């Protein structure tokens, strides 16, 4: 128990010291995970909505694929991306392995299915309610997708946040494809893994606490945005 308290103290000291290495690591973590969330949302939202609304060839395969990918362990995603990006792999020529871009790709693959699955659920539920009236309005398919995504924005935000949570918390995939290179691909979770392997449990835990604070901050601001948006929706 005393170790947890001293870790908490250390976390405070780390924050107060404004350690440049720590700032760099936090910055990279945010940049990688937020970019991955953005990519996952840009792909996952329309795919999820399309699966919810339209019957097209290959749809059952896509549904199974999305659900299966959701449960994939991050390490497996990391391995697949590693094999694809390795010099010996099909995309080796782009020289992306051990770069932040590789980490973004891995995390986007990891959370894209989550966003798509939650979008599908939200849009399907909303269509139950909206379907006849939108058809009565004479809304076309494209406009219908956009309307449902916009009206489902609060639920979808929760889905996207869940994706961000998984992205920023995972270590297996970014460790393999990023390599945990100091000042290049070292993020919060790989730092925690590194410090744990050095037996620096307190520093590892302190980093964990900082990660928790960041996650709290992002969720709180998302909640605040949602709250403000709800009261002033237009």
């Amino acid at each position: 128990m005393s170790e947890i308290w001293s870790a908490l103290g250390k976390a405070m000291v780390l924050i107060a010291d404004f350690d440049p290495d720590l700032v760099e690591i936090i910055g990279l973590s945010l940049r990688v995970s937020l970019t991955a969330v953005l990519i996952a949302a840009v792909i996952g939202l329309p795919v999820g909505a399309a699966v919810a609304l339209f019957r097209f060839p290959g749809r059952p395969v896509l549904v199974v694929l999305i659900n299966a990918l959701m449960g994939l362990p991050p390490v497996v995603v990391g391995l697949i991306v590693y094999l694809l990006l390795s010099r010996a792999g099909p995309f080796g020529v782009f020289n992306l392995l051990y770069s932040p871009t590789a980490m973004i790709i891995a995390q986007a693959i990891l959370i894209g299915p989550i966003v798509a699955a939650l979008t599908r659920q939200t849009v399907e539920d909303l269509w139950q309610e909206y379907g006849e009236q939108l058809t009565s309005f004479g809304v076309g398919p494209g406009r219908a997708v956009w309307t449902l995504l916009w009206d489902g924005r609060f639920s979808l935000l929760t889905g996207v946040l869940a994706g961000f949570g998984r992205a920023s918390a995972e270590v297996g995939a970014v460790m393999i494809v990023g390599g945990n290179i100091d000042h290049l691909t070292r993020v919060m979770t790989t730092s925690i893994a590194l410090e744990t392997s050095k037996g620096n449990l307190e520093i590892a835990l302190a980093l964990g606490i900082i990660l928790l604070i960041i996650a709290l901050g992002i969720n709180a601001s998302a909640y605040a945005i949602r709250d403000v948006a709800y009261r002033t929706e237009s």
Partner: protein
Amino acid sequence: MTLASLLRAGLAALLLTATFASPGGAQERSVRMLSTTSTENSGLLSYLLPIFESKTGIRVHVVAVGTGQALRGARNGDADVLMVHDKASELKLIADGHGIERREVMYNDFVIVGPRDDPAKIGGTNDAISALQMIKKSGAVFVSRGDDSGTHKAERRLWRAAGIEPEGRSDPWYREAGSGMGATLNIAAGMNAYTLTDRGTWLSFRNRRDLEILVEGDPPLFNQYGIMLVNPAKHPHVKAKEARALIDWITSPEGQRAIGKFTVEGRVLFIPNFRAKGGS
């Protein structure tokens, strides 16, 4: 601290993000080295490489993984330089044409650590082989890396020399962690068990609890590191020029002296032993 410094941190993080996102930083010369967790975790590389970087302006990006993964990465051409400690596998890599210009850089040593009360009574034997036999006889728990790393292979060699082939399935006292050195030490510390570790990781390891060094200094425990260039003939994108600069510097009198000067808690961890004729 408090809010103001948090805001400052947030702002700085944003600025850093912007710098990262902008091109231009990519212009710097760099070389990528696959290495083992032992060199990274002990702090040797973060002491050694800045000297090289400030001399040459070449950044060294270290990917520290298990020896097995490092060798695989070199085979794939995912790095320019490889520095590991498993001579047999290194020579195999060279025979297969993926590595060239291997040089022996330095050695460190393994130690057997265990609980202070030492149920197997191996303290003071200074004979690694008979220590392992005593551990087996006492039935005390031994935690193995079990991850096919250089350290794991060295440990298996020692068991073989002791005439014992322990297996996790049939020998309940022999636990295979399947993890890196640090994680394995964490497990041993938590279980009050024996394990084999390199001295560097041990000295910089902060979660020892009741563990201490019980056997050390026996020649079978010595551990040779080799460095080599990933073959540019097989992997044309390898930055041979920068990589050779790194290899040349580490094996130069200056690099070797620097290795010898690196200490943790007052102890020299790696003994430089490059000899110009020792290439293969």
